[in-house]
């Protein structure tokens, strides 16, 4: 069965691309053995984490065209769920990560039901509001989240009696999560569900008239994307060993958004490039750290002005019929 699926995937990707994908995977696998500098390795873990998070946003923004600009909320919910569960119960970290993903996904369902029936702008604004509300709730609900003090002492994850505490361990952990995410997303995008998502992005009315239950597919899409944001958050909780509301400010949302847009919406490779470039660049020019968010803002403006589909973009923006009608 597994071999069958694998064969299918390989035949679907063209040979040339496959070469690069294998090369990239090999380089990424060797990296932690070659690099000895712990700081560089730490940045490598963060880079993969941001690639995971921006890829999860890309599922929503890039494939279905729903502008979720409060993605940080689901990342925060994932991180806090993991921190709360793992400090109170003795559960395996894999289970905790899964639960965190589902909890984030559940919140997105509650947010999606009232907003996804309406046109995209309401959804965009509500997600922005939701991100702020999530942060405020974290700060105020002291009995659960310890408010401004954050939750320290997230236990070190263990598997088969091995304690996963070094940067190398976390590197492989996030590498596997990212690999699973991309593989799964690739399979979904090339299925009936993925085609429904893309058709909604291209023209929602046309897609509905072809018999696609657009509301259902939008909800599915949102839940899938936010599941991975929750997983990313749970990983962050383990990696940092500490969660606090300061890590989940709105700027973080805009950072994911910039990564997706700069890399290219609606392709799997786009957020990988965008996430990597926009995580590594600010580290290289660390003296410009204060200007980080300015760079993100300018990057978004420049991309939209000169290459709206992003560096590796796979979609074109066009005005659809329903838009020109009422203007």
């Amino acid at each position, binding site marked *: 069965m597994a071999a069958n699926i694998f064969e299918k995937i390989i035949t679907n990707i063209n040979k040339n691309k496959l070469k690069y994908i294998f090369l990239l995977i090999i380089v990424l696998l060797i990296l932690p053995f070659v690099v000895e500098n712990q700081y560089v390795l730490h940045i490598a873990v963060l880079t993969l984490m941001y690639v995971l998070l921006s890829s999860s946003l890309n599922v929503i923004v890039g494939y279905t065209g729903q502008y979720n*600009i409060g993605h940080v909320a689901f990342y925060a919910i994932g991180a806090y769920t993991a921190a709360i569960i793992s400090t109170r119960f003795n559960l395996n970290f894999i289970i905790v990560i899964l639960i965190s993903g589902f909890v984030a996904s559940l919140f997105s369902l509650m947010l999606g039901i*009232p907003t996804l029936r*309406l*046109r995209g702008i309401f959804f965009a604004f*509500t997600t922005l509001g939701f991100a702020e509300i999530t942060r*405020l709730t974290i700060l105020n609900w002291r009995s659960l989240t310890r408010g401004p003090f954050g939750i320290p002492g997230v236990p070190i994850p263990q598997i088969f009696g091995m304690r996963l505490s070094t940067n190398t361990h976390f590197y492989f952990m996030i590498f596997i999560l990212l690999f699973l995410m991309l593989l799964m997303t690739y399979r979904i995008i090339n299925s009936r569900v993925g085609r429904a998502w893309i058709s909604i992005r291209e023209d929602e009315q046309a897609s509905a008239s072809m018999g696609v239950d657009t509301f259902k597919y939008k909800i599915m899409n949102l839940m899938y994307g936010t599941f991975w944001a929750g997983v990313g958050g749970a990983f962050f909780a383990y990696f940092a060993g500490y969660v606090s509301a300061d890590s989940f400010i709105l700027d973080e949302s805009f950072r994911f958004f*910039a990564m997706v847009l700069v890399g290219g919406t609606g392709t799997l490779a786009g957020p990988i490039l965008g996430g990597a470039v926009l995580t590594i660049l600010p580290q290289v020019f660390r003296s410009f750290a204060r*200007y980080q968010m300015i760079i993100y803002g300018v990057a*978004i403006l420049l991309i939209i002005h000169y290459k709206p589909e992003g560096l590796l973009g796979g979609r074109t923006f*066009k005005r659809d019929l329903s838009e020109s009608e009422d203007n």
Partner: protein
Amino acid sequence: MFGFYLSQLFNGITQGSIYALMAIGYSLIFGTLGLVTFAYGDIVIFGVFVGYYFYAVLGLNLILAMLLALPITFLFGVLVEKICYEKFRKEARMLMLITTVGFGIFLRSASQIIFGTGNKSIPTLIEGKIEIGNLNILYIQLGIIIFTLIFIYALRYFLNNTRTGIGIRALSMDQDAAKLVGVNVDKSIKFGHSLGVVLGVFGGIMLGSFYNAISPMMGPNLGLKAFTAVVLGGITSIPGAVIGGYILGIMENLAVAVFSSGYRDVVAFIILIIVLVVKPSGLFGKEVKF
């Protein structure tokens, strides 16, 4: 106890006036451009900071400094329109939406670097208070309410009785038809947008003067509140925006009185969700598709 609620109600009306101003500005921008903006709150805060800069750094008289900020933000509005919208008027709407997100990030982080991240205090524009029983009414509160009403009536006159104003209204109804009857679309869009920005900044100055504090980080939250007020009132309706603003201000302060002040900003969000579930066209709006 009753006095406490009464003074919270009065605070709510004051704050509602401010939200009403911002909501009108927002609604004007929506009318002329046909889409929402995510940079509104950040632009408003930037405008207030321009005034603050004149006052605190150049040492101008407080009222003069704030008045000077208004024409400058008007020009700034033209610049924003050029960067975020002009090129994309005939293209997919999402592009404009994204440029406003990008511009908002840029402006907020630039303001943080120029003006600092912390709260800056603006002294009250008008000092003093009246006491009625145990109800304290500050002069600044009365000033805000009166100024808001003056502004609303001036705007009404402008939109109904001047050539430019009628042009803006025509634009918000049908852009192509407005063009056909000789409205200068480009100029009207720029004017309408900048006017919306100036109204917001005026509201922002009132807010800063009422709370004595402004910070670049307030932007997204203010934008969300203006949007909520506009959606509550019905997105294309200016009287709706005013009423939406007042309802939001009053609800917020009553919620603070009943629960705790930590949840102040949650109120706007809850109202937004309820409106979207129950009546997405708002209280006074026509059925509009977005």
